[in-house]
């Protein structure tokens, strides 16, 4: 199972300002790639481009050595993206939230899978409480339960540690490493310092993209 996300001379211009230019990336199975940079350096934009949300870039993207344009469906089916906002509906219970994501992904997994995923992220007992009544950290955990729920090889996580307590952070870090070791691949931005490990790699975006390219 090959797993390879490549970018060639990737550049993004927003309103006449280059966020980054000439960025070459080659992300393979078994890696945790942390995108670093000061605020406004285009971390989120890069993740959005690499997760196929933004078509507004220059350069080429490849998934499994095929151009992204052709491989888009296969790519989206392998991708799990968690953005700044958790994507959890306050009016729905954690179970219902996960059920929607399961259906969107076209997964067969039933109720038991959802229960197990919620238990994994420490939300046992909260399955039927409307998410609006949960704390910000717990809502984030509902979103993180999708990591357990859907066996997707590529994880793109934008600030996944936000609002999570210390135990949760440690558990999430373990989960990332484990995912990488099992042949998955993680692309992450975070202000939290990740414990160094063999799988961890860093990409640095400079202010205004001056040192990212050219």
């Amino acid at each position, binding site marked *: 199972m090959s797993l390879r996300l490549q970018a060639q001379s990737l550049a993004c211009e*927003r*309103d*006449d300002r280059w966020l980054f230019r000439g960025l070459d990336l080659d992300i393979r199975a078994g890696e945790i790639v942390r995108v670093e940079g000061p605020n406004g350096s285009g971390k989120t934009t890069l993740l959005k481009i690499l997760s196929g949300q933004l078509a507004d870039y220059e350069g080429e993207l490849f998934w499994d050595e095929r151009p992204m344009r052709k491989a888009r469906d296969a790519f989206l089916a392998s991708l799990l993206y968690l953005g700044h906002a958790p994507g959890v509906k306050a009016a729905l219970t954690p179970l219902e939230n996960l059920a929607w994501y399961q259906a969107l992904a076209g997964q067969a997994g039933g109720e038991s899978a959802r229960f197990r995923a919620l238990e994994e992220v420490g939300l046992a007992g909260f399955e039927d409480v409307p998410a609006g009544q949960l704390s910000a950290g717990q809502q984030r955990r509902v979103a993180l339960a999708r990591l357990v729920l859907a066996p997707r090889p590529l994880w793109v996580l934008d600030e996944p540690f936000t609002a999570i307590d210390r135990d949760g952070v440690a558990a999430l870090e373990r989960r990332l490493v484990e995912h990488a070791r099992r042949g998955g691949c993680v692309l992450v931005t975070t202000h939290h310092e990740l414990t160094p490990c063999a799988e961890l790699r860093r990409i640095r975006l400079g202010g205004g993209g001056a040192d990212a390219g050219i």
Partner: protein
Amino acid sequence: MWAFINKLRSPKWFYAISARLQPWFWAAALILIVTGSVWGLAFAPADYQQGNSFRIIYVHVPAAFLAQSIFVSLAVTGLVYMVWKIKIADMAATVMAPLGAAMTFVALFSGAVWGVPTWGTWWMWDARLTSMLILLFLYLGVIALRGAFASRDSASRAASVLAMVGVINIPIIKYSVDWWYTLHQPATFTVTGRAAMPMEMWLPLLIMVLGFYSFFIALTLMRTRSEILRREASKRWVRELAEETT
């Protein structure tokens, strides 16, 4: 065709070529509008029914034509921008929209003023005037939407989509308003719908229409050039240009 599209990608090329085209369109606009105005105002015969008030036609019709054409141009440039990502198209759309709104306003105002001697009232829910009024709202929507976004790229795309949606709707709006009007007021008299106009009347009208189109093209070229300088201010060729023209 393809080569032309590729050339359009370069604002520098457009800036150079438009500099050469611009004077011709200004000259054409000036000559045509002056000729058409003198002819229409002073030489064309008075209408046997409406007398001299019919001379409003020489500004009303060209403005109405232009108002509709500019909206179609907005949609076309929007499509070009969305499909080929040609920035020039969006710059042109940015500068065309206010002129289109102004022309719509001219058509509305002249139509309303024309209504006083014709219908005896300042405003009549005439099919054409109503369609024009709706068109004005469509223009205001496009302009407001473009202004509402913080990011210019998003604003451009949103305005393009709205212009395209609007252009699909314009014929529908026009036909439904025409139908609505005939239903409510059995058509007695429309100001511009005229079977046969003598040549001395329609020739100046044609000249005025052509003059207005030349004016539109000339003004769009000129303002697009300013827009290029504004948006490409960080490019080397623009800097050099700025230093040259000091």
